[in-house]
């Protein structure tokens, strides 16, 4: 699992690759916690994300809450989209 973070004014972009599971989810949590109050919108690039577990979903939801809904997931693979659909999260989080 690797996490790349780019800050640009009040928006931030995080690129995830590999497996976001119980072992790696806390790393993403720490990155999101580290975002300052000036960041009001976050995009998570999931192009290279291969797997997401419930612990990973929790971090996504936490980010969604921290951004007051201004969270976008982009370039999400079909497998990962299924997970969001199955858990009903696609109804609340913007997925592209």
């Amino acid at each position, binding site marked *: 699992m690797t996490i790349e973070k780019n800050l640009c004014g009040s928006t931030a972009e995080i690129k995830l690759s590999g497996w976001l599971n119980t072992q790696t989810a806390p790393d993403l949590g720490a990155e999101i916690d580290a975002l300052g109050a000036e960041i009001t919108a976050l995009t998570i690039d999931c192009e290279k994300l291969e797997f997401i577990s419930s*612990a990973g979903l929790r971090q996504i939801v936490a980010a969604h809450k921290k951004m007051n809904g201004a969270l976008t997931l982009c370039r999400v693979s079909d497998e990962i989209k299924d997970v969001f659909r199955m858990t009903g999260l696609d109804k609340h989080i913007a997925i592209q």
Partner: protein
Amino acid sequence: MKKESIGKRITRCFIVILLLSLASTGAWNYYHTYTQNVRESRREAERCAEIVRLSLDRAELDMEALLSAEADERYRSERDSLRTLCRTFDLDYLYIYTVDPSAGERRFLFCVGGDDDKDAVVLRERYLGAVSDEAFDKWEQALLSGSREMQMGRVSTRYGNNVTWLSPYTDWQGRLLAVIGMDQSIRLEETKVLREFLVAVLPVVLALTTGLLVLLILMRRRILRPIHTLSERMSLFAADSSREPEPIGIRSEDEIGEIAASYEKMTGDIRAYIANIESLTRERVETNVQLDVARRIQYGLVPEETSLKGEGFALHAVTRPARAVGGDFYDCFTGDGNTVCAVLGDVSGKGISAAIFMAMAKTVIHEKLTSGFGPAETLNQVNDVFCAQNPEGLFATVFVLVFDPESGRMRYANAGHTPPVLLGSPCRLLRPDSGIALGLFEGAGIVEDELTVQPGEGILLYTDGVTEAVNPQKKFFGEARLLEALEGFSASSGTAEDAVRTVTEAVEQFREEGEAFDDMAVLSLLRTGRGL
């Protein structure tokens, strides 16, 4: 082996070195002095013999005539001058004799002694013309067989222990006319050698001893004592590392100082590590105790295996936590009016927090269902409870099913859980409205679906630990393999337990040796024929 300090060993080594060097310098010195003395003595004897030869030449003494003549005035004066020579060269005896090899005898021409007593004896015994027929010794033999070198012999005669020099006296053709003998007492020689040896060796001995002593003292002070201190400290530290070590107090700029500094740093580091390890161990023990308690609570709430049978239905459920405490749970009970309630859920995350959340979820859902709420109502209400109090941001996906065995009607609602499998011919996935996982957003709006199953049909619920099981090639088990595994299962002949076992065995076989990342729970509910 007996313990012995380095200091003692070094001292012993020093003494051995001292003795060895003494012995070797002594031997060398003795040899050197001795050969020098012999050389000197030879030179002296050569000079003396030369003078004798000159005076014999000057006197033009005819040996034969001399022997036949009486000891006249002239003979006595020659003899006196030989005595003076004898004393001058510090000889015991000086003598001149002819040799007759054919007769094997010597004839003395002159024989003088150094002091008066000796002279009186030889004047009486080795007078002019006195014959001695003792066998020729090897030095005389050498002269007789043509050697013209002065011979050195060591002999013990009745006149004492002597070094004897034998020098030839020849005519102009080199024929041996007479032998000039010069005796020196050995005792005199050896005292001289010994004295010179002592004079040469003593200063060396003194210098060596002093040097070694100074070296020893320096070593003791600069090396042995600090090492001793260090060794003591180390054994103290090894015996009880918890004690605060006193400073060693070695501040020299050499290697010993470096060792002392490294040692102090090392003890500090070790103490820090030990403290760290101790606290880690304590924490670990505490965590293990907590985990143990949590596991016992969880096993009480969610047993590893449960069977529930009643008229017209059979239910079997298992759970397999990946770690000591898992987040998967199930619940099954008979509710109002002979209905059967089955709940299967998965709490996000693992470990204690997941277990606590799971316990809460199971309890609240159970309570709502027994209070007569329908599946969707139950889940919507539980979602509101979770959203109100969820500091950790945990959530749970849950599938709730209420079954009436009599009519075969199943009412169910889904909160973001994996789609269940309809056990029939063929088995297929049901695709209910996915809903949303509980605890994430208020107002979940979960809806209810329903379905009627025939006797010999059933439903199988599972958590994502089944479909997301991973093999060593990092492939997921997936829904396709799940359906494939259930192909051979017939709900009309197999039991609920068979259905569950078919799935768990397929997953375990697929995973091979790989570690289970996620928990796994499987529940099957079959509608059986009446009377079964």
